[in-house]
């Protein structure tokens, strides 16, 4: 193994190489930091690079290995989406509002990964407060897709996806409120896992919509996603919505055969709106799953087409409440020269938030305001229940639901910024899993005109193993996940 190839390794390969003594954690960290220095100008995937901290953490990992200790991720590099609080490091959430915020504590996800020995290389770019599907709402500018620099890597975890796709980090954390891990993974040929609501602690993860937000990972292989999930999953006293549910050995339980697995396909997913070439790629993927032993049948999600409007009531409502904490008093941006305290609040928020965040706060304020609450918010929570019931019934008949992650491959930067609704509809296939709290994964599912397409797999509550098994078997049978973008090899 030469030093120049280290960036091509997956986490599980790195772990084997480190254990074997083929290279050290410090060599690996240096290799990645050099690549970030060389390539990130073209991508803008990182908001903050933590080079010095990475080298010292890597040294500690090497020392631990030499001493025969160290956790399951000892010396493995990872990038964190800049929505996760990292002690002593700026945590911006992609916003001017938090451009000057240095977190006094670590998110639980960050703590658990660090305790297992992971080495943070930096904080990745994202849509402002995770509100967006193209990474274009970031205060720090858009991220570019390494597969085509004129195109978006998706969002909101666009920086994490671009960094992993371009081999600047073997893995990154992400968050997913409506598709923010899975859609960027699909658009960059990476694996994106959103666990069951409550599977992973949200402590220290800056809140957008608390009943939908869930932390997850973007990796280059399903095995790596399983490895990381095993570390970050589990109950946390600091998040009362984290689930008290056993954490299995996801990685050790992966299986290649899909004999007896029942896979459901939603007919409406293939109706108009889905790019024809994407549809063809996903149909091919379904045939591969069948060839591995799965039985594919049709399932009906009759309220599916109401999922995006439901989401755009529930998510903005929760966001308007969560983001009320940004008032210029205790942390973050404060506007100068205010006449009085009300003026200070209004100007701080008017100047500190970007346009999309302001639109969502106002949408949420409107649907929660007197006279509109029943018509919008209560109604949306009722439809949300219907959508969750649809999934529950479908999972009485099948183990996994498969389909496309995104209606099209990566779109050009600027193509959808004029109309919020066009942008919102990017998440049409992914939002349902958030509304119902279900685990879902996007895995590399082929290419259309040199652009990656994602295969989306949804499981029942705490059914992470079932979707990981399908993803793993599919990945072993195809070679999509091993492809890397030209210019970043």
């Amino acid at each position, binding site marked *: 193994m030469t030093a120049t190839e280290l960036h091509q390794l997956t986490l599980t390969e790195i772990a084997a190489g480190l254990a074997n003594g083929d290279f050290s954690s410090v060599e690996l960290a240096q290799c990645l930091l050099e690549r970030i220095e060389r390539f990130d100008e073209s991508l803008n995937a990182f908001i903050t690079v933590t080079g010095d901290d990475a080298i010292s953490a890597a040294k500690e990992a090497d020392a631990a290995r030499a001493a025969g200790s160290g956790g399951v991720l000892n010396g493995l590099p990872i990038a964190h989406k800049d929505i996760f609080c990292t002690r002593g490091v700026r945590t911006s959430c992609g916003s001017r509002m938090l451009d000057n915020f240095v977190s006094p504590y670590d998110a639980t996800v960050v703590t658990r990964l660090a305790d297992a020995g992971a080495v943070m290389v930096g904080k990745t770019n994202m849509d402002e407060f995770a509100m967006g599907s193209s990474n274009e709402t970031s205060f720090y500018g858009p991220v570019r897709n390494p597969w085509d620099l004129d195109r978006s890597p998706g969002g909101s975890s666009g920086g994490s996806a671009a960094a992993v796709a371009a081999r600047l980090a073997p893995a990154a954390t992400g968050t997913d409120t409506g598709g923010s891990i899975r859609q960027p993974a699909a658009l960059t040929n990476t694996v994106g896992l959103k666990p069951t609501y409550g599977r992973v602690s949200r402590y220290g993860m800056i809140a957008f919509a608390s009943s939908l937000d869930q932390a997850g990972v973007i990796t280059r292989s399903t095995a790596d996603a399983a490895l990381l999930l095993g570390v970050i999953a589990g109950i946390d006293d600091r998040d009362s919505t984290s689930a008290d549910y056993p954490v299995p050995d996801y990685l050790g339980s992966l299986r290649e055969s899909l004999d007896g697995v029942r896979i459901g396909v939603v007919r409406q997913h293939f109706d108009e709106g889905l790019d024809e070439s994407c549809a063809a790629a996903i149909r091919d993927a379904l045939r591969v799953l069948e060839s591995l032993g799965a039985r594919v049948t049709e399932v009906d999600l009759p309220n599916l087409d109401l999922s995006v409007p439901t989401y755009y009531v529930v998510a903005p409502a929760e966001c308007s409440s969560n983001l009320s904490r940004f008032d210029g008093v205790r942390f973050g941006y404060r506007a100068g020269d205010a006449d009085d305290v009300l003026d200070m609040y209004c100007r701080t928020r008017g100047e500190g938030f970007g346009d999309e965040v302001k639109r969502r706060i106002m949408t949420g304020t409107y649907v929660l305001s007197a006279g509109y609450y029943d018509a919008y918010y209560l109604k949306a929570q009722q*439809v949300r229940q219907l959508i969750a019931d649809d999934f529950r019934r479908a999972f009485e008949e099948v183990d996994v639901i498969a389909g496309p992650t995104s209606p099209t491959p990566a779109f050009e930067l600027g193509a959808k910024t004029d109309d919020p609704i066009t942008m919102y509809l990017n998440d049409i296939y992914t939002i349902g899993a958030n509304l119902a709290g279900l685990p879902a994964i996007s895995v590399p599912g082929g290419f259309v005109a040199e652009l990656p397409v994602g295969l989306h797999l949804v499981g029942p509550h705490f059914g992470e193993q079932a979707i990981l098994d399908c993803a793993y078997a599919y990945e072993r049978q195809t070679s999509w996940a091993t492809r890397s973008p030209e210019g970043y090899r």
Partner: protein
Amino acid sequence: MNARSAERTNSLLLPRKLTVSLDTDQVRHIAMLARLKLADEDFADTVDKLSRIVDFVDQLSQAATDDVMPMAHPLKMSQRLRPDRVTETNDRDEIQKNAAAVADGMYLVPKVIE
């Protein structure tokens, strides 16, 4: 329960004419409730885009939801309780490093009382 009729399937991705919209006064009121000062040059665009969003979500009004309990939690879980004991230390000084203006452990804001 099927909340909507079969022929409306796929309507989501087709262009629609606005049936619900917000006016300038409503948007001004919402912005005040949300404590957001909007720049004058952004105002017309905000009214237009918010109208499109509200019109889009108004599709929900067609859903049949009689007797449907609104969802309270995706997993039907209730909030855990914990013993009421001190678990965190006092990090006031460190936490206040992120504030724009503090004095004697307090946060300073523009004058509230004349």
